[in-house]
């Protein structure tokens, strides 16, 4: 019963995240979906993933979204989608039905075959060691890409500031020329 309630609430939160007009509201609904998903992961026995999802999905990513929205501004675009609404809804429903038809009938717990469940450290470091290396490379490339993308662009010079700098440079050049002339006179 608790599981059903959590699943319904997660789906409602996801719909609200798509439907919300303001980006900040949408980001907060998404944080709710992440938190509920982490509870579901915990109930399904994936404790490590639940903790990471809660800290990264509901924490870090939400903070990043709020930061980006505060920097970029919360534009409210008109809700009219680019393709017709009946087409998008129809495609989404078709997608859900096809996936459900393919996945749900086979999803019954198999107790006949005994499958070994090695400890997580063994799976993570030995069986899926390549995945870890790829993750490390991904994290570094992500950090470097973020630094490159978020680097402050030099603001174009304002007109008055440009004039001020130009006048200062002319003054410095004049001073330099007079110094050179004076030194030439001294030499003569």
């Amino acid at each position: 019963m608790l599981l059903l309630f959590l699943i319904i609430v997660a789906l409602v939160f996801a719909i609200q995240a798509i439907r919300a007009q303001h980006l900040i509201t949408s980001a907060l609904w998404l944080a709710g979906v992440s938190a509920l998903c982490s509870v579901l992961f915990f109930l399904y026995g994936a404790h490590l993933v639940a903790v990471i999802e809660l800290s990264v999905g509901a924490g870090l990513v939400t903070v990043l979204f709020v930061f980006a929205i505060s920097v970029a501004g919360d534009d409210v675009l008109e809700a009219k989608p680019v393709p017709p609404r009946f087409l998008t809804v129809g495609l989404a429903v078709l997608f859900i039905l096809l996936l459900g038809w393919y996945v749900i009938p086979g999803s019954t717990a198999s107790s006949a075959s005994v499958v070994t469940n090695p400890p997580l450290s063994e799976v993570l470091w030995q069986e899926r060691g390549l995945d870890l290396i790829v993750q490390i490379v991904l994290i570094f490339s992500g950090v470097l890409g973020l630094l490159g993308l978020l680097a402050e662009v030099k603001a174009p010079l304002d007109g008055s500031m440009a004039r001020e700098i130009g006048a200062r440079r002319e003054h410095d050049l004049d001073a330099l020329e007079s110094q050179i002339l004076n030194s030439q006179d001294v030499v003569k």
Partner: protein
Amino acid sequence: MSFSLFNLAFVCGIGLLGIGFYGLMVCRNLIKIVIALQILVKGALLGLVAAGNLNGQVNLGQSMALTVIVADTIVAVMGIALGVQIRRRVGTLDIRELSRLKG
């Protein structure tokens, strides 16, 4: 067909995938597209964890879900950074306006 624990997880996963897919088609704001992508990936994660639980290999499902979380976070971070830069340079986040850009 009785709806067992696993069926419920797959229903939720497929529902999240469908909602994310719908969001990708409908949304025009670049940051909202990243949000829709996040919802889509949450559905895939739930499917991975439930499939691992179903086959009695929870830890294998966990390790795969961990990889997906890392990749998904990097995608979100890059999408957000791109959105911020596009907003600074072009002045809009509307993908319809962005697709009209030339040069």
